[in-house]
């Protein structure tokens, strides 16, 4: 499935649409005047079509704020943020957001939750239902479509959260520490799964995490953010062949990337992760 072709159906393709996400000199200040807190300072980066970008950094580095700006939930104080060549002026229908918690509605079944974006945006029910069932199969939840969230494990719930973000076929997927609440084993399984989904669907993904290993494992390119104020500390391409298996984490090449992230987070060189 080619993301570009699908995009053309719903959205006018921009002439210079190679950069799906473009952020230039972005700053965000919470509050005003001297008491205001600078959450993001002078952030610039670009994401190409179909690219998987991980933004990694400790808590308080403004990475979730960055995602909120890109999702159109929060206006920036300064600078520009654009999607597919047009500036962001509020929520848009061509993005899908996955939050830290699954954010499911307990009164909707698995299918109902996946269908939520389709219901909100008034998309064709029959077609969307077929798509929803396909997506539910894609993440191995076939047979669970009529179950309710309380009957699912944390990992299963987050899978529902992910396919819900895919139902309206957005060109861009914004993920805010989606596996942060899961245990380490489930998290690794979900990482492998997400890679598989991404390789199948080829969305542009901006993935926020505080785990260096997760960032290196998943991303084509890693952006390291440092806190107070949130700034880009380093940015590099991860040159590991795909599909990556969990064993890749034991290789020297993987270790070198993880070291590089740590170095950016601890410029003094001291301390652990």
């Amino acid at each position, binding site marked *: 499935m080619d993301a570009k072709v699908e995009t053309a159906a719903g959205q006018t393709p921009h002439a210079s649409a190679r950069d799906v996400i473009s952020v230039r000199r972005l700053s965000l200040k919470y509050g005003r005047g001297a008491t205001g807190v600078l959450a993001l300072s002078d952030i610039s980066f670009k994401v190409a079509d179909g690219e998987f970008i991980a933004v990694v950094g400790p808590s308080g580095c403004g990475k979730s704020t960055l995602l909120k700006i890109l*999702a159109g939930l929060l206006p920036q104080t300064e600078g520009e943020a654009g999607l597919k060549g047009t500036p962001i002026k509020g*929520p848009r*229908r061509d993005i899908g957001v996955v939050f830290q*918690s699954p*954010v499911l509605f*307990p009164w909707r079944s698995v299918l109902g939750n996946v269908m939520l974006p389709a219901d909100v945006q008034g998309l064709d029910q029959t077609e969307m239902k077929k798509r929803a069932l396909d997506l539910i199969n894609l993440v191995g939840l076939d047979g669970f479509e009529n179950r309710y969230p*309380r009957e699912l494990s944390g990992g299963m719930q987050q899978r529902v959260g992910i396919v819900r973000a895919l139902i*309206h076929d957005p060109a861009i997927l914004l993920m805010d520490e989606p596996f942060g609440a899961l245990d380490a084993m489930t998290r690794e399984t979900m990482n492998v799964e997400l890679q598989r989904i991404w390789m199948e669907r080829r969305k542009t993904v901006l993935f926020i995490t505080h785990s260096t290993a997760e960032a290196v494992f998943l991303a084509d390119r890693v952006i390291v953010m440092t806190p107070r104020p949130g700034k880009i500390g380093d940015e590099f391409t991860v040159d590991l062949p795909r599909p990556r298996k969990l064993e890749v984490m034991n290789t020297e090449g993987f270790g070198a990337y993880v070291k590089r992230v740590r170095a950016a987070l601890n410029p003094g060189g001291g301390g652990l992760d």
Partner: protein
Amino acid sequence: MPRGPVSFTLRLLFIAALLGLWEWAVIFFQTPAYIVPAPSSIAYAMYNGIASNLYVSHIGATVGETLLGFIAGCTLAFMLGTVVALSRTVEYYLYPIIIMFQAMPKVALVPLILVWFGLGLTSKVISAALVAFFPLMVNTIVGLRSADEDRINLMRSLSASRWQIFRMLQLPNAMPYIFAGLEIAMIFALIGAIVAELISSEKGLGMLMQSMSFTMDVAGQFSILFILSVLGLILNGIVTLVRRQVLFWDTSRDADANEQNATKGEVL
């Protein structure tokens, strides 16, 4: 908590023992029946009342007033609660009035209602509605406002309209609160109707009780108290039954509904 047929039998035996103790105490202390009647005389009064078809029309009147008051009070409470929950401006202007009415014992208004609306059905329904109104309104406001920040952000990120956020998120999210409010409101409506009947009425269990009071028929009064308690249980049970159907997804559904009720300390 103990469970099983043995504990259940013990529970029944415990209640029987209490009744037995009561019966014995009345005989032993030779308590006059116009002060505390024995359980056996209450049962006899009850039997007489049922046999002479005394209760039926009065139960009908009280239940009718209660249900009409419940429906009227809850409809208004839901509408006003929704408007207050969704509009900070409306809340700003109404808040002082709401607080004042909430602090006031609503049943104290009943004599006035009787003056304004007469001795018939209308005054009883209004009284029931007034008492039922507040618990539901407060719970509607709290429920609609309790929607999780992340869920609202999710809806917003999907470009949902305000109406969609209300219909797809806030309203279903408020349902556990609303049902907790409805359960309280049902009992409160019964209280409102009874109080109005006690003060002045042509029929109803409250009026029957009042007339028995004049004739010192204390056993009869106890029999009506028993009927009222059963009525309260049935009316409350109906709401609980509906709640279980509607809120099948609510994991806290078997927890004490009162816990979710913001108006626990409500003054009657």
